């Protein structure tokens, strides 16, 4: 009987000496209205009548959600819903569940008294059979509730039998079935590994997963764990421990979250919620209510709850923000704990390995929620904004131990102190934080002022001892280095902190002295290059996505941005790679020329034969082999080189032959390029579709480039293809340098300088209908879509071997991207690129050659500007044909965009090879983001002018 009692006593209760002392409280009296249904009655367990295991009819398991746990009747209000669930539960009493507690029992051995007795069948099942694991069940007749028995055996050793007992029996044969499917190997492993795989199971069983000896990194000793293993599966929360009730029903709270009984995470949350109202006794763990003042514990940095070593990991989970309870994640920390941030306690060191602790402490120190909140800090009576706080904290000499509160800050001298108090610190001067200093900031009454602040007595003493004349209520201007002058005079009177005696006095009066003479230049630099904290970087980084159809010039824009905003645009290594790329490009262009040469040669030979045959028919004979030679023919040596190059190109490993090729073939390239045949072919380059426009830029310098000592210039890099790895994505972080003086005067720009931008260029390839990765860019702020204006008469293969106008292909891509769900609310900037090419081309090829632009019908003034002048400035009074075409195309895209999204499209004109236009365009992008932020939809941009202008000639 004693062991039965043991099994029924709650956690922490001592075993009564005689039965009479035990207080039974099975249920509260029901006072509600009469119920219409039959009340199930609680019947004591008869140990002798434990039913035997039966095979579960699997068909009855269809309702997966029905709970195996017999629901209790809640005494105060037996709502019909609950009772329904209850009866349901009994209908489906055959649900397979686990006898979780018995794993533990296994290890505790057979000395478990009575509870051991009625669990023995289960224990046996586990230790004996793998194929048939019987589960013990105690069918509570009429099921008035899950009896929540917790055993206490020999003081601290408890057995968490609670839930397992109300289980049905089941023989589960699925494992056998699974063997059939998987073949023998899997099955073999399954049964052999049974013991090993206990780890995770045990985790569920006992929150502390002690007793998992096989675990590698866990430092729990199995013996420790058994002292505290019942919380999660004993439905009694720890706070109930003090109750004397022996059999407790599930209370209302836990029955609400009945699933939670088995899911540690939820159960934990419940306990957390209950935490405040049920404080454990002083010094005890908040979770398991055990331990005393001397037990090692870890404290939540938000709510100050303390947990013992067994409970920490359960209560704090994976600690994404450091040592916080799971429920406190996302809340700001207790300010008194700021000092201890990142300082690890003994308990954690004991529980976790070094790497894990490093990560936790790093997260604790660096995550955003744990940072000092800027709103709580006032400097010169002005609340700080986050950027100002960052400035303050990242300056070369930050205030020590900054806490929320009100401070004054003397921007000239760098003196820093609490409002109403003498200075306590000298920090970096000239930081743009807070408001202007008040004369009474330090609450002085000496009538002597330093930088407009009335100093305190202590400071006055210091000044006097430093030998400063303080007669006549002077106002001193004190600089950061301590040099001072009286107001209204220009000569520096001396240095306050110049003498060592002054420093001594300062120490006595606990006044600050400048730490050491710092070089202002260095400071200045540090201010610019200061590292931005990670979390802030995430927030201030504005992402710009640059996309476009292949050949639209996105890579040129990207390279331009690099030249514009990066101090070192390309490193030495990168330049080496670029050199190889350019060289192999030249070989490729040569290859295309040679291919063309062969074609031209053939054609002209055919032509000649024709002529010859005509001649022959008229003048009979005199055809000679020599005449076979055309201007496109080359010598045998070059022919061999040409054949080799073409062969390499066909096999597709042109890149592989570099840089060896340059060493060997540089002279040959020179010879080849100077050959008349090649030159003749080059003259007909417009007929070679494959040859890109930029090829001529490089081909004309082929000799120079193919040399070993060639170094690519910035212009070469700009022109070169394939540098911003067309294979993958390229991104660069940048911030706009202050251009011009007026901008730097603007104080609002102070915060802008913190704003950083990331230009992301993605390859056109794969940007299709079913693009798998576009959704990864949901966090970009602006999509810059690039279209080459010169594409209107170009054709490309759309993959189905049908030629498609490149402008239409661009439009198709534009439609896809604009309507992509990821970019639903995104702002778009359309860059119409290659305006310079358009200017060249439009006079020869009408814009209407693209069917989309069929109604381009510009009204042209009689004295229109000569289009050959290629004027850079857009002359609105007399727009050139190219400009008109630009307006027209811009309107076409704007209308398309509006019809797709109902929003406004921003358009910008760019000549990719001119850095100024790229810079202008990216600054325009910044403006868009700013407008977007302010939601000030000012239609001040010149483009609205364009659109009105343009609409006049677009039908």
């Amino acid at each position, binding site marked *: 009987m004693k062991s039965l009692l043991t099994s029924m006593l709650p956690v922490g209760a001592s075993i009564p000496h005689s039965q009479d002392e035990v207080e039974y409280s099975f249920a509260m009296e029901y006072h509600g209205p009469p119920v219409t249904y039959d009340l199930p009655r609680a019947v004591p367990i008869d140990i002798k009548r434990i039913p035997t295991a039966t095979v579960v009819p699997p068909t009855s398991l269809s309702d997966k959600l029905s709970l195996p746990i017999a629901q209790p009747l809640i005494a105060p209000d037996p709502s019909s819903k609950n009772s329904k669930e209850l009866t349901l539960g009994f209908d489906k009493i055959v649900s397979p569940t686990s006898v979780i507690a018995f794993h533990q029992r296994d290890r505790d051995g057979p000395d478990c008294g009575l509870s051991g007795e009625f669990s023995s069948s289960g224990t046996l099942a586990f230790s004996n059979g793998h194929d048939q694991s019987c589960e013990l069940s105690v069918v509570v007749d009429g099921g008035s509730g899950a009896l929540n028995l917790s055993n206490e055996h020999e003081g601290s050793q408890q057995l968490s039998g609670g839930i397992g007992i109300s289980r049905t029996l089941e023989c589960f044969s699925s494992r056998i079935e699974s063997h059939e499917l998987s073949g023998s190997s899997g*099955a073999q492993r399954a049964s052999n590994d049974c013991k090993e795989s206990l780890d995770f199971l045990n985790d569920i069983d006992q929150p502390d997963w002690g007793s998992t000896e096989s675990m590698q990194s866990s430092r729990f000793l199995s013996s420790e764990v058994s002292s505290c293993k019942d919380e999660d599966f004993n439905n009694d929360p720890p706070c109930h421990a003090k109750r004397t009730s022996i059999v407790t029903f599930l209370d209302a709270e836990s029955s609400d979250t009945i699933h*939670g009984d088995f899911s540690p995470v939820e159960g934990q949350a419940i306990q957390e919620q209950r935490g405040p109202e049920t404080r454990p006794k002083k010094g005890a763990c908040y979770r398991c209510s055990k331990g005393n003042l001397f037990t090692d514990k870890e404290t939540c940095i938000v709510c100050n709850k303390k947990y013992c070593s067994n409970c920490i990991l359960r209560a704090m989970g*994976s600690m994404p923000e450091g040592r916080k309870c799971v429920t406190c994640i996302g809340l700001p920390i207790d300010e008194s704990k700021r000092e201890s941030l990142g300082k690890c306690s003994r308990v954690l060191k004991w529980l976790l390995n070094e790497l894990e602790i490093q990560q936790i402490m790093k997260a604790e120190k660096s995550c955003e929620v744990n940072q000092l909140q800027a709103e709580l800090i006032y400097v010169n009576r002005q609340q700080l904004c986050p950027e100002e706080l960052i400035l303050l904290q990242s300056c070369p000499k930050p205030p020590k131990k900054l806490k929320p509160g009100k401070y004054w800050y003397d921007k000239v001298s760098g003196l820093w102190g609490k409002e109403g108090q003498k200075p306590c610190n000298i920090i970096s001067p000239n930081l743009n934080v807070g408001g202007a200093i008040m004369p009474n900031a330090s609450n002085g009454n000496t009538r002597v002022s330093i930088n407009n602040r009335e100093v305190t007595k202590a400071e006055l003493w210091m000044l006097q001892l430093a030998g400063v004349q303080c007669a006549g209520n002077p106002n001193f201007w004190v600089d950061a280095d301590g040099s001072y002058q009286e107001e209204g005079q220009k000569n520096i009177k001396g240095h306050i902190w110049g003498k060592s005696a002054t420093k001594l006095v300062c120490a006595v009066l606990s006044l600050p002295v400048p730490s050491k003479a710092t070089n202002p230049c260095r400071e200045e630099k540090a201010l610019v290059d200061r590292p931005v904290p990670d979390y802030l970087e995430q927030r201030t980084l504005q992402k710009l996505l640059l996309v476009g159809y292949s050949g639209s010039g996105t890579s040129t824009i990207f390279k331009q941005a690099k030249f514009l905003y990066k101090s070192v645009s390309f490193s030495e290594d990168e330049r080496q790679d670029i050199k190889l790329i350019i060289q192999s490009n030249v070989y490729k262009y040569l290859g295309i020329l040679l291919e063309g040469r062969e074609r031209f040669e053939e054609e002209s030979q055919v032509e000649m034969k024709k002529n010859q045959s005509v001649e022959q028919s008229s003048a009979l004979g005199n055809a000679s082999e020599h005449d076979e030679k055309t201007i496109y023919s080359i010598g045998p040596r070059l022919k061999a080189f040409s054949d080799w190059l073409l062969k390499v190109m066909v096999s597709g490993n042109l890149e592989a032959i570099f840089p060896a090729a340059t060493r060997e073939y540089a002279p040959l390239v020179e010879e080849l390029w100077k050959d008349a045949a090649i030159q003749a072919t080059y003259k007909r380059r417009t007929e070679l579709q494959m040859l890109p426009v930029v090829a001529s830029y490089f081909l004309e310098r082929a000799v120079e480039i193919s040399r070993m000592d060639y170094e690519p210039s910035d212009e070469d890099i700009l022109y070169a293809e394939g540098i911003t790895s067309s294979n993958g994505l390229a991104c660069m972080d940048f911030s706009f340098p202050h251009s011009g003086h007026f901008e730097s005067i603007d104080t609002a720009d102070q915060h802008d300088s913190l704003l950083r931008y990331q230009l992301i260029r993605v390859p056109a390839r*794969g940007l299709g209908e079913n693009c798998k990765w576009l959704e990864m860019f949901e966090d970009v702020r602006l999509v810059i879509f690039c279209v080459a204006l010169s594409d209107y008469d170009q054709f490309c293969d759309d993959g189905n071997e049908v030629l498609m106008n490149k402008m239409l292909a661009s439009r198709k891509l534009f439609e896809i991207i604009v309507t992509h769900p990821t970019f639903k609310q995104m702002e778009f900037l359309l860059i119409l690129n290659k305006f310079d090419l358009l200017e060249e081309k439009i006079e020869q090829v009408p814009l209407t050659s693209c069917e989309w632009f069929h109604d381009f019908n510009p009204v042209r003034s009689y004295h229109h500007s000569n289009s050959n002048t290629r004027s850079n400035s857009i002359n609105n009074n007399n727009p050139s044909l190219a400009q008109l075409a630009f307006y027209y195309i811009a309107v076409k895209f704007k209308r398309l965009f509006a019809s797709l999204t109902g929003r406004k499209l921003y358009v910008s004109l760019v000549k990719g090879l001119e850095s100024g236009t790229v810079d202008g365009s990216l600054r325009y992008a910044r403006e868009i983001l700013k407008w977007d932020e302010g939601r000030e939809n000012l239609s001040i941009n010149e483009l609205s002018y364009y659109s009105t202008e343009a609409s006049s000639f677009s039908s």
Partner: protein
Amino acid sequence: MSVAELKERHIAATATVNALRERLKQKRTLLLDTDGSSSCYSHFAGYARSQGRTPVSFGPTDLVCCRILQGHTGKVYSLDWTPEKNRIVSASQDGRLIVWNALTSQKTHAIKLPCAWVMTCAFSPNGQSVACGGLDSVCSIFNLNSPVDKDGNLPVSRMLSGHKGYVSSCQYVPDEDTHLITSSGDQTCVLWDVTTGQRLSVFGGEFPSGHTADVLSVSINGSNSKMFVSGSCDATARLWDTRIASRAVRTFHGHEGDVNTVKFFPDGQRFGTGSGDGTCRLFDMRTGHQLQVYHQQHAAADGEVPHVTSIAFSISGRLLFAAYSNNDCYVWDTLVAKVVLNLRSLQNSHEGRITCLGLSADGSALCTGSWDKNLKIWAFGGDRREI
């Protein structure tokens, strides 16, 4: 021969090829239709049911969330377990790889990636290094034991560059720390030598039997590491032998959408696929036949079929875990082709789409990564330690 003539011929040839393709498809369905019922949804499940097989039953406590791994600040895209089963690497949109101790649910490494757009990650068989790949088209290897640089970041120990498209998936060859297979958006798979950083073989690409669209996933046969299977946007899965790079051993047709994920069956004789057409399929490696379709009718109002984002088999193969784009995560009984559980309906289920699934090597725990930025570890409660 004039251009017009050539074009005509080309059109005719294309038509012939398409007609042949269609015939092939018909023939294939005919062959697959073993019981003559011509219903493609009753491959072996019908037989199994007729033999009185019943679905595995799942109680609500048989699969419980026992760990929540919090720490990513972006969507989780990929995860992988170490073979010794207690560590996990996960890749997220926040541009970090995190190595977790699955037992303590603590992070051991947080690796900031040079390119934040990571799509896949993998643990090496010895657990000493992790690999990841993404939109930068490079597969980067990090040695977890290398010292951190001054900013506290782990340096890249090896870059495997050569792909011409994004790296969609990577997996180490089992028991070989030096070999790794990646799949890429450039329609190829590549076998790499990690120590030298060289490509050992390229599968697909210029060879006619390769994939004709982005390859999205690879899975290496656990019992014969020379064989691996790849799934692609061309709606096929292809079986490759690492010794024969020139051609695919077999092409598996059947899916009507992108094959988003492939996973070998534990016995190595068949493999499962998950597709954009909302189905999972089981293919037999040797016969090339489709064994089973796992398809759940959805009562979606907009007719949108949820895609399968990731699949995993239980250690016995009896269960197939399949995550869908509508946040569902079904547990299929592979034998009778019935959904036995939806992870979404469980306590502590994810709040976002589950993007990756992985079973620990011993099969005792399932890890899921989700768009809700968390990873969760689910353990088999009760008497089944693994299934």
